[in-house]
């Protein structure tokens, strides 16, 4: 147990003294998760909204597919994105394998089903009186869309938090697509995996603490929003 205790003390030392390697991994994680969250929200909210509000043939099949993708293993996403972005892959010409945009593509694919599914659910569970109320108050279709998004705002933020939690804690995509390159694509999770493998528990624990603080913050926000959404 001594090595664990030693790891904790070392962890606080690294964080307190501003160890560049540790903070590089933290910064990389913040940067890449921000990119993938922005893309997931921009693509996912309109798709989820359309899925929730419209009735069309094959909707149930599409919902089942999206719900299935919620539990898509990150290593499988990593493998597929790697295959597409590698030099012999169809998107190899973009040259983004082993770069942060490449990781962001993979993490966007990871976050999208969560945003789409939870946005669709949020829209489906809105009060049925909302649409006729907005119509009778004279809102145009565009005004109705914005008002509906605002009415579902707490649930949409909940969806964003859930997606962020999954994105920030994944390791498979970052490892396979990013390559875990020091100072470039090394994220908190890939750094933990590497340092633990090397027996460097202190760095791993330091990064683990940061990740847990982030997870705690996200969870607290989710709980708060859940209460407000009721």
């Amino acid at each position, binding site marked *: 147990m001594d090595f664990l205790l030693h790891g904790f003390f070392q962890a606080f030392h690294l964080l307190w003294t501003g160890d560049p390697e540790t903070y590089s991994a933290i910064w990389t994680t913040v940067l890449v998760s921000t990119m993938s969250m922005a893309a997931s929200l921009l693509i996912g909210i309109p798709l989820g909204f359309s899925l929730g509000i419209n009735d069309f043939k094959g909707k149930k099949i599409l919902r089942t597919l999206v719900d299935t993708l919620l539990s898509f293993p990150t290593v499988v996403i990593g493998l597929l994105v790697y295959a597409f972005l590698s030099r012999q892959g169809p998107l190899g010409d973009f040259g983004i394998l082993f770069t942060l945009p490449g990781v962001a593509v993979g993490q966007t694919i990871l976050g999208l089903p969560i945003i789409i599914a939870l946005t669709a659910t949020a829209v489906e569970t809105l009060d049925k*009186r909302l649409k*006729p*109320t907005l119509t*009778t108050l*004279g*809102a*145009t279709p565009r005004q*109705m869309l914005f008002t509906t998004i605002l009415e579902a705002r707490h649930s949409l933020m909940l969806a964003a938090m859930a997606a962020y939690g999954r994105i920030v804690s994944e390791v498979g995509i970052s490892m396979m697509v990013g390559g875990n390159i020091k100072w470039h694509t090394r994220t908190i999770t890939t750094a933990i995996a590497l340092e633990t493998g090397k027996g460097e528990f202190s760095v791993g624990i330091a990064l683990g603490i940061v990740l847990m603080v982030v997870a705690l913050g996200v969870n607290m926000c989710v709980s708060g929003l859940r209460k407000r959404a009721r």
Partner: protein
Amino acid sequence: MNTSLCEVRNVHHTYGSRTVLDIDSFYIKPGSITGITGPNGCGKSTLLRMLAFLEKPDRGVVLFNGAEHDIRPNPVHREVCLLGQEPYLLKRSVRANVGYGLNVRNTDDIEPRIREALHMVGLDADDFLRRMWHELSGGETQRVALAARLVLRPKLLLLDEPTANLDEKSSTTIRTAVEQIRKTDGTSLVIVSHDLRWLRSICSPLIIMERGEMVETA
């Protein structure tokens, strides 16, 4: 010459195998207050939704200003306004709720109109403007929703059980508000209620419905 504001012709509507509306002819004159009463499930609310162009009949037509209109959001919804039986308030403040219809119309001088509408339904603007939707009682919700319609000064205002959650005093306030909007803005009204005494005090004509049909006009 046809002088009706709104007209229902040969309307027949069913939910499954149950006929909910079967009306040959029904007119709403400009500036009138039409009352409709009848037992539960006789088609009163369905008729109001059709007059508000929120639902289309299976057969027949509903005309407003002599023309048919779509049930998708369109300009007629800025002239005809419905207050449902259990009104929905946006998850915002009373000010935002009452001002919503004015905002979507890009109207100027919103604040004094919101205050005036709240005053008409017997709510003190200084006390209520900042309140959130969840801080209102059932009766207050009803009155805020009515204020959100009155503020729009529509050509046709349809009220479904507007006094259902209100006490005697508030019912009198609503009656005064209804008379005022008709007098000052020339708004025509159709009011559905079970409160026959209240309807008699304000409406002419008064229509009794049964099993989707208009059986008597007083």
